[in-house]
């Protein structure tokens, strides 16, 4: 079995700051991490590898520095890392990203065998769109299985896979056929550490690096900014609310404070008392 996991190197957004005066992003020293959601996908792929024996290829489109993140996936136990990098990809939106990645996946299929399963994360923490996975599936004609909480069965002979999918209002028990694209739900598993052999192998490994030409992209207008139908016209910081919170103060102990707060809440939201009686009423009959 050949499994490809798409990962993205993202800025650790917890550490991004907005310049208070100029409203620009202060990137100084902001570390990058592997998009946390992608690790659930990778771990799932490695579990399938443990169980059925598989080659796990990790793919990312990003700047040359994204090789660091790729190498890290090798320390977890992935077998091969592919970096798709080209200045023509700069400014790609999800449509252009899924185009470039699907071309790279075509090349991966050619060079290393067609993947039965492609994994992506549920979403990225910088883009947060959850669109790249579905975009790839559509372009490659893979069966799309999003928000997967669990892979319950794989039948290699029948080339089928059974999964639990988080749907609105419930869980779907689905069965589909290879090839499939799966986006894994968070908290479905926990990333392993990788052995010393994995770590040494990762340090030695060459990251396969391709540019647009290498993956057969001839029409560069489908890439990067030019290939992106969406246009970001404005980036701005959220406006602060004009008035600050009204601070409730009360003399005396905590009971006095609590009473004052209850009063203040009812004063601020006069309708709420009626609602409360309805919602909470049964506790007090």
């Amino acid at each position, binding site marked *: 079995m050949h499994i490809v996991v798409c990962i993205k190197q993202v800025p650790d957004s917890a550490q991004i700051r907005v*310049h208070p005066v100029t409203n620009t992003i202060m990137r*100084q*020293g902001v570390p990058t991490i592997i998009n946390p959601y992608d690790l659930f996908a990778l771990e799932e792929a490695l579990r399938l590898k443990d169980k059925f024996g598989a080659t796990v290829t990790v793919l990312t489109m990003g700047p040359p520095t994204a090789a660091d993140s790729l190498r*890290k996936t090798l320390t977890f136990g992935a077998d091969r890392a592919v970096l798709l990098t080209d200045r023509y990809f700069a400014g790609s939106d999800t449509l252009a990203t899924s185009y470039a990645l699907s071309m790279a996946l075509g090349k991966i299929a050619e060079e290393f065998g067609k993947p039965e399963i492609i994994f992506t994360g549920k979403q990225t923490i910088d883009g947060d769109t959850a669109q790249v996975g579905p975009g790839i599936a559509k372009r490659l004609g893979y069966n799309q299985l999003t928000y997967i909480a669990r892979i319950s069965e794989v039948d290699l002979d029948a080339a089928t896979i059974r999964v639990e999918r988080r749907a609105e209002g419930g869980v779907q028990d689905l069965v589909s056929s290879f090839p499939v694209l799966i986006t894994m739900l968070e908290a479905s598993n926990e990333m392993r*550490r990788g*052995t010393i*052999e994995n*770590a*040494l192998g990762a340090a030695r490994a060459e990251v396969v690096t391709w540019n647009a030409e290498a993956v057969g992209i001839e029409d560069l207008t489908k890439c990067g900014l030019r290939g992106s139908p969406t246009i970001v016209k404005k980036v701005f910081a959220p406006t602060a609310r004009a008035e600050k919170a009204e601070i409730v103060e009360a003399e005396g102990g905590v009971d006095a404070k609590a009473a004052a707060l209850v009063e203040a809440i009812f004063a601020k939201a006069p309708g709420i008392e009626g609602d409360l009686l309805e919602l909470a009423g049964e506790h007090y009959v």
Partner: protein
Amino acid sequence: MGQFDKPFDAIVVGAGPSGNAAAYVMAREGLNVLQIERGEYSGSKNVQGAILYSDALEKIIPDFREEAPLERHVIEQRMWMMDDASHSGMHYRSNDFNEEKPNRYTILRAQFDKWFSSKVKEAGALVLYETTVTELVKDLSGKVIGVRTDRQGAPIMANVVILAEGVNGLVGQRSGLRPEVGADTVALAVKEMHFLPRETIEARFNLKGNEGVVIEAMGTITKGMTGTGFLYTNEESISVGIGCIVSDFATSGVTPNELLEAFKAHPSIKPLLEGSEVKEYAAHLIPEGGYKAIPQLTGAGWVVVGDAGQFVNAVHREGSNLAMTTGRVAAETVIALTRKREEMSAANLADYEKRLGETFVMKDLKKYKGIPELLHRKKGAFFGAYPQLVSQAMQTWFRVDGVDKVSKEKAIYSNFRKTRTLRGMMGDAFRLVMAWR
């Protein structure tokens, strides 16, 4: 598992400045080097003020200025003696420091170390991150022949292990190579990074371009403990921190955090940080025992470099340059032995200490060998009474209030006498000078 059959020429434990210097120099000379770092990347666990002294790095990567992530080059040094409300001190600013190859830079360790580590990899060393060396593997004769890590799998073998693991030196300690570091020979420093727009920093410190300022401070800010405070300007941030000897913290009950908060609130410091956003907080140990605290540095199959060997000049706040220099010298020793196909025996590796003796590292540490002890013994005076007296004297002298200058002189003099410290101060000054020599 073929990779485990042939031992590495050298394993370097740690990817701080000392480990990176050692690994880089050996890899560049074609040795088969494995470096193991427990942090997520080189620099992720490291804390430093930080000032980079060009010379030590220049000896390893001569044209480092072209690509290393440097913040500002230092053109001004301020030495402040502080009491609770004021500071007096010395300023040295010179346009000479705007030279073509500046002598000192402020850096951010996380970025700098990462860059240095990339050079190590380019030079051909294998680098493992997020891997902690847990113990040294020894053969029956007690010679160190490899390391074990916290990852599952077989031990990794090498002809020599260079311990560049920093001040705690747990691997060396656990393996019985050297004693635990004493609480009175290490300082605990806490540091914050404060974000400020470039223009604000430049306006506030009277800088242009990439010029930078360094402030070193001592006095009542350490609440009677042995220690110093510092403030460095980076490109778009300010590093501010304070540190004291660990055993002092233990006896005083003051927490490092309280100390830093008080330092930042000091009327001389506060306006410099005004409007900034705190980005990160970190605490780290600094070995300050000096020459007398240096442990055994070599043995069969092992060498110690950097902070792990207590190579810090506390008086001049130099550490990373000693780290890089000891790393380089250790590497050169190992390279020479490897080329001659000689054993990494205790006797052969002792050559490292001989080579070190000829560098500024040992010469400087020897010169200041008495100072750590002196400052520690007389901490009440150096970090309490003296700064206060000096400050009072300054104020009396500069305040124009109708009192004639002779009376002012007398007041100052009697103030010194009242606290009976004039003689003590002269004595201490004398002792300090003697220790300095």
